[in-house]
């Protein structure tokens, strides 16, 4: 590739597009199935049930401390599969490129996707590229599809949450939201926080191996943060999910940014943490298992489930008062993922 920037020719179906596919995508992704260049990936059948997810990534800026749009696309898709208890296997990715995007940026993003896919142990087996005129998109948008296999007998579902259950969190919250917000450079301050963007499938598998029974539901708190997941679970199970502010890990840098901007860490997106609801009898062993894994050292027991008040998410404050764990209003942070 000799050009410096993406042009409309790279999406034309002609020579330039073929060079882009062969010299960039096939070279970096290095997958036999992808390299066949058929119109579809052909994959073996599986013993368990099929899990399918799709996601679009439009994060701004495309590079931020701790990650970039490519790493985010792979991790986000892998994590959506993982929290259903499935073993992520294959990804597809479709790129919408804005005319003028530096090729060096695209290389960097694609390499980062490959690295994240290798970390997760998934294969990128299908792809598509479109180029739109300058101004019709912002640099690059990525849409993914992910396929995984759910072992037979495993049922993770929010409707299975019941009174007495405990709520676990895999680590500190809000890093991704804070990192992207700071990286936009609109705040005029340095915030030394990196996105937590990482694949969670190994940590989830580790938890499910240690506690094959008693894990009710898992969810990664992305947009809307922890507050959104806790509220969705409360509605789904019909009970009350109570979170203890004092036990929720939040990094000092993230807390400081939130204080300055008047936002709550509960509303900030994570891209490398998950919440788990577990039966009370396995809570201790589940927490111990998480903490024993290198990705789960900062895991904590953060809350519990009761029957009443029905369909309510409650925050028990550091001072001992209680209030609703509210959902964010409007759109506090557009284009966070």
């Amino acid at each position: 590739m000799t050009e410096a920037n993406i042009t409309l020719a790279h999406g034309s179906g002609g020579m330039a597009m073929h060079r882009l596919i062969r010299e960039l995508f096939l070279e970096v992704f290095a997958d036999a199935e992808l390299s066949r260049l058929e119109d579809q990936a052909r994959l073996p059948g599986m013993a368990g049930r099929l899990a399918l997810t799709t996601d679009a990534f439009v994060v701004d800026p495309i590079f931020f401390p701790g990650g970039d749009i490519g790493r985010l696309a792979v991790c986000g898709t892998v994590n959506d599969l993982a929290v259903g208890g499935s073993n992520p296997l294959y990804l597809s990715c479709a790129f919408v490129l804005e005319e003028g995007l530096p090729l060096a940026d695209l290389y960097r993003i694609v390499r980062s996707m490959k690295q994240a896919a290798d970390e997760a142990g998934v294969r990128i087996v299908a792809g598509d590229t479109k180029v739109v005129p300058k101004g019709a998109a912002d640099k690059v948008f990525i849409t993914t599809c992910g396929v995984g296999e759910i072992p037979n007998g495993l049922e993770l579902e929010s409707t299975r949450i019941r009174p007495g259950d405990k709520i676990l969190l895999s680590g500190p919250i809000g890093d991704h939201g804070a990192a992207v917000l700071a990286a936009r450079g609109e705040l005029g301050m340095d915030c030394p926080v990196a996105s937590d963007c990482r694949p969670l499938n190994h940590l989830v598998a580790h938890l499910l191996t240690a506690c094959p029974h008693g894990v009710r539901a898992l969810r990664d708190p992305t947009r809307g943060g922890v507050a959104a997941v806790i509220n969705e679970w409360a509605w789904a199970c019909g009970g009350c999910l109570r979170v203890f502010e004092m036990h929720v890990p939040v990094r000092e840098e993230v807390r400081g940014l939130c204080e300055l901007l008047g936002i709550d860490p509960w509303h900030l997106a994570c891209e490398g943490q998950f919440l788990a609801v577990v039966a009370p009898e396995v809570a201790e062993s589940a927490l111990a298992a998480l903490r024993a894994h290198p990705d789960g050292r900062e895991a904590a027991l953060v809350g519990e489930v009761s029957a009443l008040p029905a369909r309510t998410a409650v925050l028990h404050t550091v001072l001992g008062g209680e209030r609703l764990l509210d959902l964010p209003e409007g759109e506090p942070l557009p284009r966070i993922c």
Partner: protein
Amino acid sequence: MRFLSEFRDPSLANAWVRRIEAHLSGLQAPLPIMEFCGGHTHAIFRYGLHQILPSAIEWVHGPGCPVCVLPRAAIDLACTLAQDPAVILASFGDAVRVPGSSGSLLSAKAQGGDVRIVYSPLDALEIARRHPEREVVFLAIGFETTQPATALTILQAEREGIANFSVLCRHVITEAAIRAVLADPDVRLAGVIAPGHVATVLGANAFAFIPKEYRIPTVVSGFEPLDLLQALCLLLGQLAAGRCALDNQYRRSVRPQGNLAAQKAIAQVFEPIGSAEWRGLGRLPASGVRIKERYGRFDAERRFGVTAQTVEEEPLPCSQVLCGKLKPKACPYFGTRCHPEQPLGALMVSSEGACAAWYRYQGE
């Protein structure tokens, strides 16, 4: 986190609650205490302070949320300006959701208006520097807390000779709103928690008129939970001792005379106007400021000569909530026709408004 978690320490908070309980034994309940400032309202709900305090303490949430009291007409004017393709309208984030007659700045943005969220008026000035071909208008709102920053930005623009920057000035005066509430014969308060940020600028003495003229014990307070608990304790101490005076709890920020440089900037750029419109309170005398003639070229209203059609608000019970006569939840519109996504009344507009804080943290 240093200088933050100390002020939220649960064991210290408990100790203050016990002191408050001890003071209460000699006092007749209930004790209606007004916190004027929306920042205090938000802190009370956010930390659940009202739940750890004895029920004898009855919080009356005052009108001190600048976003909430922003009148429809101001939003209508800002939306009209934002629709001009030459204009970039810069605003604080919480003001863009405030509803006008036919929509908010957020809806003006969705219709193609160039509305930018800024954290400081200096950010708006920076946009003007970077876009000399456009007109940048900053929607300036707030009490005396935010007035110095607007004033200094106008002075900076003048020094640099920036010709494409102006301010739609809707700053208001704290004292006028406090007087409006306290003058209501139905409002009976045992004490007032005075706003710590306004006092940082104007000085604690700016609130001496409350104990002096209205005979209500007053304490200037900070915004952390321990600040509020200590302030409450000072108030009850006054009541228990039969005193009626002004105490300053927020001494790490508030001096008796305030910040003289900030006051000078305000006096240099702004002048009082006869009256100003407040959402929920109506038109109040001596409650607003405008940009002085000398800096008239930075006044967006003089510069653009725009007007906007404003539809009259339907009569709502907001002023009764503001005066503590009606609890937010007892309002017939609360959570039905009036909620944070679609606020009808002033107090539902921003999370510092009593109704929105109640809705958000206490539920329907």
